[in-house]
């Protein structure tokens, strides 16, 4: 293959930053060719917290997939397989940092402390999935591929102009996107602007190997992280199924950004274990042996192995985590099923912060029209 990766499911040629192997072995620290050293030091409690995050986001995702199959969601974009990339990077954010997600960042959303129910309105078609982006420092899901990288770049340039960077307690921005998005003009424009203006932003690319059905070798002839060189900022590739490496590299990149050292591209090398969305059938374009080889690199089982070997957690803890996740998932199911259908007139809400005379008139006319029907509100 053009990008030097030929074996099915093999680790990428040229390596990546890995602090926890698929067998659950800890690597103390990794020093890259550029001389940057990455490591983490977590307390037992923090290790257990990461495990709980991973299991919880996977369980919620499974519930959502089931709800879609049962006709309760119009569509669902599953994060299965990408939990470590999302939890590791999400937990690396500091409270003041701003995140710009795609429509698959349910794991990052969870780490931001947002009620997991929030995106379900969007996928159920009863609201726009709107939460207060400023309150949670988490932008709404962006469906348009790659568009959020420009929003993030603009935001990052803005906080620089506001003088919110340049110190250890400064702000930073993270923009999420996938391997397919790197072929979009927007993403390249965002790279250009961020590079030129030294914007405090981390570009976090979850390379899950497929842009819907299009494989990576149709996106690039060089590893994606090396693209950053051409735009004048550093790029790092990490084992995206390793929550520790993801945390370490993202934390460093964000701190560099907040201190005024400009952008970083992180390529989290991972794999989408499920379909692109519930409307897609991956067996039509992927071979089973490839999926199998990635199962052996599961982000959760490697952390579990590590916790067991190090005697950081035992069966009781794992059982409790599973039970808590199940309870949360079932309560999420109940709440999704109870979501009220929207009133037609609510489409006029949230267009302008303080309304507009034209919209007010339209709303009044529309309300009258609806009142002209017999029966209940809907």
């Amino acid at each position: 293959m053009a990008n030097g990766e030929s074996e099915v499911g093999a680790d990428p040629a040229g390596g990546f930053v890995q602090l926890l192997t698929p067998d659950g072995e800890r690597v103390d620290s990794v020093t890259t060719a550029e001389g940057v050293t990455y490591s983490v030091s977590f307390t037992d409690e923090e290790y257990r917290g990461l495990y709980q995050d991973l299991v919880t986001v996977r369980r919620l995702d499974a519930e959502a997939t089931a709800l879609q199959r049962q006709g309760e969601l119009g569509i669902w974009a599953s994060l299965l397989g990408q939990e470590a990339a999302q939890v590791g990077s999400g937990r690396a954010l500091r409270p003041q940092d701003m995140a710009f997600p795609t429509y698959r960042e349910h794991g990052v959303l969870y780490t931001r402390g947002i009620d997991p129910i929030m995106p379900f309105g969007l996928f159920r078609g009863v609201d726009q999935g709107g939460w207060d982006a400023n309150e949670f420092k988490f932008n709404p899901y962006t469906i348009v591929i790659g568009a959020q990288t420009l929003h993030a770049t603009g935001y990052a340039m803005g906080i620089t102009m506001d003088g919110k960077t340049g110190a250890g307690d400064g702000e930073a921005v993270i923009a999420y996107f996938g391997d397919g998005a790197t072929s979009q003009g927007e993403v390249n424009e965002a790279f250009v602007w961020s590079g030129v203006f030294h914007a405090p932003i981390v570009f976090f690319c979850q390379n899950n190997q497929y842009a819907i059905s299009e494989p990576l070798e149709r996106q690039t002839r060089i590893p994606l992280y090396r693209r950053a060189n051409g735009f004048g900022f550093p790029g790092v590739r990490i084992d995206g199924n390793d929550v520790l490496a993801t945390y370490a590299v993202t934390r460093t990149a964000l701190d560099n950004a907040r201190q005024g050292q400009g952008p970083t591209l992180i390529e989290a090398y991972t794999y989408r274990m499920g379909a692109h969305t519930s409307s897609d059938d991956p067996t039509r374009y992927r071979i089973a042996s490839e999926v199998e080889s990635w199962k052996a690199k599961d982000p959760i089982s490697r952390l579990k192995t590590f916790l067991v070997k190090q005697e950081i957690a035992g069966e009781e803890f794992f059982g409790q985590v599973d039970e808590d996740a199940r309870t949360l998932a079932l309560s999420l199911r109940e709440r999704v099923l109870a979501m009220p259908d929207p009133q037609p007139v609510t489409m006029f809400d949230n267009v302008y912060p303080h309304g507009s005379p034209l919209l007010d008139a339209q709303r009044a006319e529309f309300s009258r029209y609806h009142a002209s029907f017999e029966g209940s509100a809907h």
Partner: protein
Amino acid sequence: MSRIKDFTLPDLGEGLTEGEILTWLVEVGDTIELNQPIVEVETAKAAVEIPAKWGGVIARIHVEAGTTVEVGATIVSIDTDPSAGPLPSGPVPSAESLAAVEVAPAEGAVEPGLIGGPAPGGRTAVLVGYGPRTVTAKRRPRAGSAPVASAPVAAAPVASAPVTQPPVAPVPAAPEPVRSGPVLAKPPVRKLAKDLGVDLATIVGTGPLGSITRDDLQAAVAAPAPVVAPAPVAAPSFDTSREQRLPIKGVRKLTAENMVASAFTAPHVTEFLTVDMTRSMKVLERLKGRPEFRDVRLSPLLLVAKAVLLAIKRHPMVNSTWSAATNEIVVKEYVNLGIAAATERGLIVPNIKDAGRLTLRELADALNALVQVAKSGKTPPSDMAGGTFSITNVGVFGVDTGTPILPPGEAAILAFGAVRPMPWVHKDKIKVRQVTTLGLSFDHRIVDGELGSKFLRDIGAFLTDPEGALLAWT
């Protein structure tokens, strides 16, 4: 809520209207948990497992495997509280009967063609998202208060069950409405009318605001044809219980459509040639001993494929398409070599892309891979699209030859019969030789007898003397 809950087929992928029940993973009486996979459904987009929406006991399976059902149809009923004891005797109101009550369309229900309303052809118009629901507009405008235009609209039938009847051609109510102003019709209907040479002004529309729908147009076109009442069929005097009725669907249906389309569009000519393949069989044996071919399965089909590829190079016109739409013959400089394969799901013809560029070893690998994938039933649609020339290897079934039908879009197809030891005149003596029969069908619109004969003769020449042909032609 009743303890028996009906599960209806959801829209599994953004705007689908139906799905085929592939396999039931449970039986009536099985105890199931929430989210346990219970049924496999194949839609136009994907085959997926559906997890149970409720835990309980399977009370009734409404639809057998192999059936295609519309989105919204009840497929299974689940007893969600089996511990409460046996169900009360007497018929449980079926989902259909309950649905029927709700479905009864209110007077002046949603206008045909509007979202949520019935659309031409029995479909339901939707945008994106949750599936076509035929239970719509239980409310109706208060008399005199509705600001919508209330032009008389023929009450279109609201489909509540899978549509089995073709839509009845609308009968215009007498007297015919006098149209004023321009003719209303959507662009695709206008295009169809133009293609059919029909003046839309001569048609009475039944769509919204009197616009002309596709059905109106098709009814108008069909109308002049004399309607022949089907002759009364005498009741069969034999035992029909011993007939098996198989639904026409899937690969069978596709094959039928393709073959009918091809057989009645392209004028087929078939020619035959019996050739002595002994030298080819010996070459094959020698190849097996070579290190380059040590780990690959070699069959006579490989040499036939090679012969076809070389012969196409000498006669490119056989590798072409008759394009009536553009009034052109499209001659291809690449060969996507189709190989007909019998699979459990039926006949498929996957093709090897750009086979003319492959070395013999690559061709052998591609043939083996193609057959293996076809047998596993995993051939992706992309492998079956874009074929330019096909081979059907009927010899593997032990027959000598056939008159193959062209795959649509291809100008020629070769049938490769069984290779048998036969008495053959060889160097003026009767010897036992390895003999086969080739059958070549071609599209006479593109290929004349002369070209077809030369092409077939070249394939035969290669198989008779592969080394000589290779040296002479390449």
